[in-house]
């Protein structure tokens, strides 16, 4: 579990994906895991008419004290990108200086840094699509991204996420999703602070 600090006491996370990749479920899992370990958290989808393939975003706030704001997250501490074909302007918008970008890609950190124009953020990469194809046989990447997230960000331990996911996915997909999480947890690569 990583060391990402909680700015002003509230950690703000924004998820970017496409309909069908499970960004909203991933955000729900974060809130459930945080609540499980006694923290306060919210998870909310960016609400629209859902359809497969359309850009989707979801928000998390995590804190040790109650969360009152019900606003969209405009300046996230952490951005998680489930689909690297999304426009960088969309997912980098407002990310805090020194914030963390966790992106699903086959590319190296250096390649991503160059592609994004050397932003003042930490970059982490994980091949979640490759992992999901191997474990689930389909590119639903949310649980792999959660595994990588659990490694990098101090919300809850991996086993808590595993329990939460076991409640959220259909029974026959529990073990393959947990495998996704574990592989991503062990293979995510992140820049030093």
């Amino acid at each position, binding site marked *: 579990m990583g060391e990402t600090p909680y700015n002003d006491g509230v950690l703000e996370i924004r998820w970017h994906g496409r309909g069908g990749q499970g960004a909203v479920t991933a955000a*729900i899992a974060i*809130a*459930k895991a*945080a*609540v*499980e370990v*006694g923290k*306060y*958290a*919210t*998870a*909310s*989808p960016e*609400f*629209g*008419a859902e359809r497969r393939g359309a850009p989707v975003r979801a928000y998390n706030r995590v804190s040790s004290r109650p*969360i*009152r*704001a*019900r*606003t*969209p997250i*405009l300046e996230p501490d952490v951005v998680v990108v489930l689909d690297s074909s999304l426009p960088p302007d969309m997912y980098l918008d407002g990310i805090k200086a020194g914030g963390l970008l966790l992106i699903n890609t086959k590319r190296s950190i250096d390649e991503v840094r160059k592609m994004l124009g050397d932003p003042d953020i930490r970059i982490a990469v994980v091949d979640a699509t490759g992992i999901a194809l191997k474990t689930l046989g389909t590119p639903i990447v949310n649980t792999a991204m959660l595994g990588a997230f659990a490694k990098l960000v101090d919300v809850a331990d991996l086993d808590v996420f595993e329990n939460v996911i076991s409640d959220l996915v259909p029974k026959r997909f529990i073990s393959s999703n947990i495998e996704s999480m574990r592989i991503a947890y062990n293979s995510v690569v992140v820049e030093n602070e």
Partner: protein
Amino acid sequence: MERSMLRVKQKRVALNSNHAVAYAVRDVDVDVIAAYPITPQTTIMEKLSEMVANGEIDAELIHVESEHSALSAVVGASAAGARVFTATSSQGLELMHEVLHIASGMRLPIVMAVPTRALSAPISIWNDYSDLMNTRDTSWITLIASTAQEVYDSIIQAYMVAEDPRVLLPVMVAYDGFLMSHTYEPLNIPEDPTAIRELVPRRDRITLDIDKPVTMGTITDPRWYYEIKYQQVKAMQNASLVLKETSKTLHEVLGRKYEPVEGYKMDDAEVAILTYGGLFGTVQEAVDIIRDKGLDIGAIRLRQWRPFPSEELTHLMHDIDTIIVIDRAISYGASIQGPVALEVYPIAARMGVHVFSVIAGIGQRTVLEKDIMGIVNKVLDYLDQGVIPLRSIYWGVRGGE
């Protein structure tokens, strides 16, 4: 009901407000559920269907072809003595409208959840309170919740109040569509619903009974119609008292206290922002920021919309000189167009408090802390100029004045 009940054991979970409704409906042990799907209400019915299917709730779930039928079905079931539940939003609530009056006129203790949503046209699936505000004169007790925890607790309280023999009126529990209905957050729910069932004992009331036949809602000529409507006026007055009593019981049993209006940092406030629903959280954040800049400001949350808590609001407004009412609905063509601002006005006028009506968040136009700060600054400018506009301020609209 027994006094000083023991605090029940609870577990902490993360749910959205729609699912909080479903758990509360499960815990009060309803008999009949009927609803028609509409965004953002649909996930309440999905969860309840799941609970009925897997045996967690022993209830009849009626699939109907419209919201008009949904409310009509629960009117019939309630008249026959069943404990009933329905839920809807937006156009669905509009389609129910004539039956809303029938439910209250027949004095049926129906409970309905309303995750609020803007009205067509143009079509908006997003949040505001236009749907709820259109039900103002239907004689339904109406609570507006601000958190998923309060949504759960309010559904329980709704049955306690609706079924009280001094009341016998239907209750709506409203909250922000999407911004709350689809937002997961922590709340505590009882580990064992038995404790909740003790709060809502089955009580005798007049029902359709073949052994003791009655007619309900029959034609009533001018000699008696007025008296029957006046009974509704008295029932609504009684509801204030029963809401107070049941809030006390809930506090004892669940450990959470609800007031008809709730103040935040009001002790030394000169200016107060009044609002309702999930927006209150963002307003509290903004109040903290504005206080750091040296303005003595507080906030008031309206929880009890019907019956309107005039006395409690008067008490909270005692030491302020200005109140800003933020409404997320428009009463088109009214003297001031914020529906709640209109209700606050006569109270404030008696007290010599200035009222500023602000419209915001229409069709879920984003309201950030800095919008609240902007609204306060605009009001302070008016006060500096000695101008109190007798119309609403439309915040954040293109082409606005």
